[in-house]
């Protein structure tokens, strides 16, 4: 009997550890995509004392390019910017009703969203520790509002668990925590941890588990007032003669562990996704527009760079109209800050050293797809009481995110109906845009049946089809960073590179701005120390 109980308890503990290790392994995998490091931003950043008449040509008017232009001009440099698009921002981009987007291959989508509704195809949130982005927003008067990442009332959905029925985040969260606490308590009571812990430790641990997991006096996680205060009630409390509260039934432990739904819960606990997170009011490109107010006059739009040359005298950049019309033009400057994505830059003839060229060619660009869907009404709020936040699904769309603004507003609403990475992202990119939208609606209807009757229109951006980036962001590996990253970031003659690809915060706007600030600081120091250009 004793033997049996010990075996059982070991297995339970192993199960629990396996579950925990799974979460840790997932965290590791996710943080290798985007390194969980606080940005190293100096709020008092300012350059001054540019040698008189010194010019800098900036390539690209995304956030890295516009940051460089803003700060270098303030320091006294003569600055010009060349930009492929007809507008600033690069990947800091918002699609609204009336906008048109033509992707590579020629498919054109007309955004039909109602006034005030939008999709941010690229960056869509700003963690509180992305100090540089926040500081420029404050400085330039960009209004921010909270971005809801974790919503306890959103859904977590697996086609393979609970009959494909979406579960509430709060129920999965509370039950997973409760079941784990119960298992650990059992392990302690069955003496499985006697060697690791003193008697005092064990008693303290049992007490902690009771409180952490909402366990009863016997260390069990079961239907009760206490557990319902975490996971919600079957019948909520009311007033007057309304029905009394009825506790809810926790999910079965084995079914919950088998479901893998708990994986989605870990995401919101990551550093990058912890409260507070912000978004600009009205769309992410409010940041691009604010920068444009500062440096717009320096930017030449519709300029497609075709060649970058340098000598000991200066830099010459050849470009043409982005539509290919007209003759080649040239722009000369003493120095160059190049923020073109490596996916583009790697295809251009550019005079840089062999190590930098190798670095430029060493970074593949990740696939990602976002789909924005407009519905006749905000059914997620009206029917399901989901106000902002993210639902997770194991279908190809990955997640559904509800707008973090205009709660309770009557009329139409736009939600993020898909945010894809990995194989499904490639598959969505390969489809015609209308098919991407159609599939997003099909899969989303498994989470919200209202999709079928409420859907109106949608727009879908596959980042490998975006004409100014050929991909979503630079996909570094540990090995490629080891071999190439420092070479990529060097000042090479008269050229220095900047952008999210030249940062340890890939794909984030903070990475683009920090990379730019670091590049121009080094460049400025170098220029001031150099003999005056002829």
């Amino acid at each position: 009997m004793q033997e049996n109980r010990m075996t059982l308890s070991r297995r339970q503990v192993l199960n629990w550890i396996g579950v925990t290790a799974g979460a840790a392994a997932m965290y590791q995998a996710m943080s290798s995509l985007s390194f969980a490091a606080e940005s190293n931003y100096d709020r008092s950043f300012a350059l001054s004392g540019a040698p008189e008449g010194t010019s800098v040509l900036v390539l690209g008017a995304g956030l890295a390019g516009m940051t460089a232009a803003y700060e270098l001009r303030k320091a006294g440099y003569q600055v010009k910017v060349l930009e492929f698009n007809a507008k600033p921002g690069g990947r800091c981009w918002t699609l609204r009703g009336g906008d048109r987007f033509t992707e590579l291959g020629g498919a054109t989508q007309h955004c039909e969203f109602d006034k005030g509704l939008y999709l941010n195809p690229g960056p869509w949130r700003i963690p509180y520790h992305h100090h540089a982005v926040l500081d420029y927003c404050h400085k330039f008067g960009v209004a921010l509002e909270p971005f809801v990442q974790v919503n306890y009332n959103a859904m977590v959905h697996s086609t393979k668990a609970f009959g494909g029925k979406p579960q509430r985040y709060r129920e999965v969260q509370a039950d997973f925590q409760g079941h784990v606490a119960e298992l650990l308590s059992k392990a302690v009571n069955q003496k499985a941890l006697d060697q690791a812990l003193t008697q005092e430790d064990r008693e303290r641990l049992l007490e902690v588990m009771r409180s952490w997991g909402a366990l009863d006096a016997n260390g069990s996680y079961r239907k009760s007032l206490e557990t319902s205060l975490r996971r919600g009630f079957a019948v909520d409390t009311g007033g007057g003669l309304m029905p009394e509260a009825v506790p809810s039934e926790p999910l079965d432990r084995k079914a919950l562990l088998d479901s893998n739904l708990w994986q989605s819960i870990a995401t919101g606990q990551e550093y990058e996704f912890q409260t507070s997170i912000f978004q600009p009011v009205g769309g992410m490109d409010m940041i691009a527009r604010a920068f444009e107010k500062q440096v717009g006059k320096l930017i030449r739009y519709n300029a497609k760079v075709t060649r970058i040359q340098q000598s000991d005298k200066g830099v010459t950049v050849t470009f043409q109209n982005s539509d290919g019309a007209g003759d080649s033009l040239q722009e000369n400057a003493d120095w160059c800050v190049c923020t073109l994505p490596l996916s583009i830059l790697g295809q251009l003839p550019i005079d840089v050293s062999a190590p930098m060229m190798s670095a430029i060619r060493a970074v593949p660009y990740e696939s990602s797809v976002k789909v924005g869907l407009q519905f006749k009404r905000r059914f997620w709020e009206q029917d399901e009481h989901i106000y902002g936040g993210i639902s997770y699904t194991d279908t190809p769309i990955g997640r559904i995110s509800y707008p973090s603004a205009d709660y309770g507003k009557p009329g139409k609403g736009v939600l993020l109906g898909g945010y894809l990475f990995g194989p499904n992202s490639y598959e969505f990119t390969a489809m015609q845009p209308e098919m991407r939208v159609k599939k997003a609606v099909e899969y989303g209807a498994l989470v919200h049946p209202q999709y079928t009757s409420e859907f109106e229109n949608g727009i879908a951006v596959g980042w490998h089809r975006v004409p100014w980036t050929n991909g979503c962001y630079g996909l570094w590996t540990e090995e490629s960073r080891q071999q190439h990253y420092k070479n990529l970031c060097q000042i090479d003659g008269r050229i220095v590179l900047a952008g999210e690809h030249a940062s340890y915060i890939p794909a984030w706007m903070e990475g683009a701005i920090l990379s730019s600030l670091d590049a121009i600081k080094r460049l400025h120091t170098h220029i001031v120390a150099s003999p005056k250009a002829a």
Partner: protein
Amino acid sequence: MRRFFATGILLSILVSASAFAADAPQLSTSGKFDETSGEALFHQVCQGCHMSQAEGSHGAGTYPTLAKNPKLAAKIYPIYMVTSGQGGMPGFKKYMSDQQIAMVVDYVRTHFGNNYSDTVTVEDVRTVSQR
């Protein structure tokens, strides 16, 4: 749920082999590419950048044209590109088996105006993928 997938499978049987671009494709569920033919792999993966007729495209940069491309003559070159990637192009070793890489490279080398008769084998791919 079951019905949803069953309908999907039925659809994929009905879809004519040449109609990948227009009709609803079967999407992968395994976390890797589940496509089982060179044609499906090309039209559901490669087409994202190289386009449906392998014609490539141009924006700020380009995606190379694979149609009538003499660089495909030495099969090791496209095998290497698909397996390991180069420049902005990701390698697909992570998401495709050697068999799948062989199938899709073979498909491109025998379509779109390419007529290379030497078949691409799994062994060919293995020399690059080293697995």
